[in-house]
């Protein structure tokens, strides 16, 4: 009978871990018009940025934003970074994270953007060095 109690406790502990892991996702909880606009804005300029990245005029920095490296890409870079920042701050605020979590959100997005960058794109690694993927 004692072993049954222990088994029940182990099962409950496992269940607890599963529910914890399940809960640890950070979603956009409310798709406000502003969030939708930021997402759609990013989607609409994706091809333009892709082309600028292929030319080496724009790169993905290690803070989750794009950076103009040469040429005349500053306006599209500014618009893209405005939308990205809005999305990052929305994730922080809608998930009740502390304000200083923005840095972590930016770092995680930066890593995902580096992973998804095409071959030949300029990317900035975690140490700050720019390389060509």
């Amino acid at each position: 009978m004692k072993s049954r109690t222990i088994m029940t406790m182990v099962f409950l502990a496992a269940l607890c871990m599963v529910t914890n892991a399940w809960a640890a996702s950070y979603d956009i909880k409310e798709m406000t018009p502003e969030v939708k606009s930021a997402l759609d804005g990013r989607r609409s300029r994706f091809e333009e940025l892709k082309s600028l990245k292929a030319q080496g005029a724009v790169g993905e920095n290690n803070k989750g934003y794009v950076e103009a490296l040469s040429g005349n890409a500053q306006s599209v870079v500014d618009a893209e970074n405005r939308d990205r920042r809005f999305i990052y701050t929305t994730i922080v605020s809608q998930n009740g994270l502390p304000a200083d979590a923005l840095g972590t959100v930016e770092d995680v997005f930066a890593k995902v953007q580096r992973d998804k960058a095409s071959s030949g794109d300029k990317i900035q690694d975690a140490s700050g060095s720019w390389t060509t993927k």
Partner: protein
Amino acid sequence: MKLNHYIGCVLGIAGLLTAQGCTVKAVGDPNRPITINAHITIDVKGLQKTANSIEDYVSGDTSAPQANPQGGK
């Protein structure tokens, strides 16, 4: 013996819920407020999942990410 088993389970559930819920109730002198420094650990894996979903939508690989009022901590 069976009663012990149930008491063990109830105490176990209560312990786990306490550990998960982490509700702190401070009672004391209002002129001497108690400061509690809470440390929140962000689950980077969960964040990566969200980032991937958003970046996939931006690149046109998937449809719009759905708002999920139930999810998250």
